[in-house]
C-alpha cells in the first residue's frame, strides 16, 4: 500500500548516486534517496559526513561530479542557483549569512526578490509600477517577519539581534522566496530551549502547508519527534533511511553513530 503511493506520486526531491570529491577526500559517495512532498526529512551524521555539501549541491551552489538531482522529476543539477530558487528550492545556511549592510526588513525583502520585476530604470526613476512592487514586497516581507514573531525588529540591523533571532530572520527571509522545499543547515545550533520549540512549531506549521523540509542536524532527540523520515550519513555514505523508529533500531546506525552515545550513557 505504502509502496503504491510512492510510485504514484513523484517525489519532490530525488537524488541518484551523488558523488563528490574534494581532492583525495571523498565527501559524498554514491548517495541516493528520495523525499515525498510535505515530508520532514532529517539528515544526521557526524561532522564531515558530507551533509552541508549535500545541501549546497541541491541548491546549485556546487555541482556534483557524478549523479543526478531531480526536483519533481526534473533534473536540476547544472542549473544556476538563482534559477533553482525560482523553481521553489531555497536554503538556510548554518551561519545564516544575513546581510549586515541592510535592515532586517530589507533582508526579508531580498527574499521577495523573485516576486517582482522592477528593473534598473523603474528603480532609478521611481516609476509608479516600481512603487507598487515595493509596497507589495514590503507587505509580503512583513507578513513573513511576523510569522516568526519578529515584526518589531523590522528596522534593526541584523547584527543587533540575538543568534536565535537571526536564525528566525534567516528562516523568514528563506520563506519569503515562496519556496516549497526548504534546505535547513543546522537550524537548531545555538538556539535556546524556547527557541528550539518555536522552530519545531514553525516547521510543523510549514508541513501543514505542504512545504517540504530537509533538515541537517546533530541533535537527534529533538528532531525524532517531528521527523517523517531520517537519513544517516557516515563518511559520505548513506547507512540508513527510514522512519525515526526504524533508523533507531538499525544496527549500522547504532554502531556508527548512536551506539557510541548509548554506551557512554
Amino acid at each position, binding site marked *: 500500500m505504502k509502496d503504491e503511493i510512492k510510485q504514484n506520486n513523484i517525489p519532490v526531491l530525488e537524488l541518484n548516486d551523488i558523488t563528490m570529491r574534494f581532492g583525495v577526500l571523498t565527501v559524498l559517495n554514491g548517495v541516493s534517496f528520495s523525499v515525498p512532498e510535505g515530508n520532514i526529512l532529517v539528515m544526521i551524521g557526524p561532522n564531515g559526513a558530507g551533509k552541508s555539501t549535500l545541501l549546497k549541491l541541491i541548491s546549485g551552489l556546487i555541482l556534483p561530479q557524478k549523479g543526478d538531482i531531480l526536483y519533481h522529476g526534473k533534473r536540476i543539477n547544472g542549473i544556476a542557483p538563482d534559477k533553482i530558487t525560482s523553481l521553489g528550492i531555497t536554503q538556510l545556511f548554518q551561519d545564516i549569512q544575513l546581510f549586515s549592510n541592510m535592515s532586517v*526588513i530589507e533582508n526579508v525583502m531580498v527574499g521577495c526578490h523573485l516576486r517582482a520585476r522592477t528593473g534598473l530604470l523603474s528603480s*532609478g526613476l521611481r516609476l509608479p509600477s516600481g512603487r507598487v512592487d515595493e509596497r507589495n514586497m514590503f507587505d509580503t516581507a512583513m507578513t513573513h517577519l511576523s510569522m516568526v514573531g519578529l515584526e518589531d525588529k523590522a528596522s534593526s540591523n541584523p547584527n543587533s539581534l540575538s543568534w536565535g533571532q537571526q536564525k528566525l530572520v534567516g528562516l523568514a527571509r528563506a520563506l519569503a522566496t515562496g519556496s516549497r522545499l526548504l534546505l535547513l543547515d543546522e537550524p537548531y545550533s545555538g538556539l535556546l530551549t524556547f527557541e528550539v520549540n518555536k522552530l519545531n512549531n514553525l516547521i510543523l506549521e510549514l508541513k501543514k502547508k505542504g512545504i517540504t523540509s530537509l533538515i541537517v542536524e546533530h541533535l537527534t532527540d529533538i528532531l525524532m519527534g517531528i521527523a517523517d523520515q531520517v537519513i544517516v550519513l557516515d563518511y559520505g555514505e548513506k547507512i540508513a533511511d527510514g522512519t525515526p523508529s526504524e533508523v533507531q533500531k538499525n544496527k549500522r546506525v547504532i554502531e556508527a553513530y548512536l551506539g557510541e552515545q548509548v554506551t557512554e550513557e
Partner: protein
Amino acid sequence: MPFNVRDMIEKTGRISSTNQQYLAAGMFTILIMTIPLGAGAYPNTVMIEVAFYSIVTMGLIMLTGFTGQISLGHAALFGCGAYVSAILTTRYLVPPWPALFLAAGFTGAIAYAVGRAMFRLHGLILAGVTLALNLLFYYLIGSISGLTGGAMGIMNIPPLSVAGYTSQSVLFNYYLLWTIAILLLIFSLNLADSRFGRALRSINTHAGGSEEAAQVLGVNIMKYKVWVFVLSAVYASIAGSVYAHYTRIIEPNTFMLQFSALVALMAIIGGRSSPWGAFLGAGLIVSIRQLLREFMPLIIGGPTGSYELIAYGVILVVALLFLPQGLFPIVKKAILRRKPVSQ
C-alpha cells in the same frame, strides 16, 4: 503618498528616509545653484571640474560601494564617452545631444560585453584586468588615429546647447553640468533604496553581503554585477561627453591611469557607502589639487607635477588609516546631530 522602505524604517537613524534624502538633495541644489551668484569665474571653473569628477565618482561608488566590485579603469569609460561624442559631432555632424546619448549607449554596450567576461574574476585579478583595459583604451586611441586624431586629439568640438541657446560661458556650463550631476544623484539615491539596489547590496561581500545567500534567494549575481557596471559606464560616458563639448578639444593623455586613480581616490575619501560621497571626495580632492598647483611652486619652485602625485599618495594612506569609510559617515552624523536641536 509615494511609498518606500526608508520612510517605514526611518526611526533607526542608521538609514535616513527617502524624504530626508530628497530634502538634502533639495538643499544641496539650492546651495549649488546660488554659489555662482557670489563667486567669480575662477571658483566657478573649479566647481565645473568638481561636477565632472562627481559624476564619474558616483558611477564608481555604485559599482564599488554598493556592489563591492573594483574598477581601476574608469578613465577609459570617461574617455569612450568623450571620443564617441567628439567623433560623431566633428566627423559625422551629429548634433551634440543625440551624440551624447549615442555615446552613452555605445559605452554601455562595451561595458556589457566586457562585464560579461570580466565578472567571472574576483578581487585583485579583477582590479588588474580593469587597469589593463584602461591601458588598452589608451593605446587603441593612439593607433586608430584616422578616427581619433591620435596624439593630436580632436579639436573644434561643438558646444552643447539648451533650447537653442549655446554658450561657452562659465556660468552656462556650470548650471548645465550641475543640473546633470544632481539628476544623476537623485537617480542613484532612488536606486540604492529599491529592489535593484538591495540586490546590489546583497552581493557586496566587502560590506556584509553574501553572494551565496543572495543566490539562494533568487538574485542572479552575474546579471547585477554586469548591469551595475553598465550603469557606472553610462555615468562616466555622460561626464565624458559633456567634458568634450565643454573643453571643445580632447587628447588621449587625459584618459590615462592617473584619472582612474584619482576617481578611485575620490570615492575612498568621500565615502563609498553613498552617492553623496562622490561630491565630498571630488570637492576635496579638486580643491587640494588647486591649492597645490598655486602654492607648491611658491614653496618649492620649478615644476610640481610629481609633488601632486605624492600628495595624493599621502592623502590616500591617511584616509585608509583614519577614515576607512570616508568622509560621508562623519558629515552625515554631524548634520543629523544638529537637526533635533534646531527643531
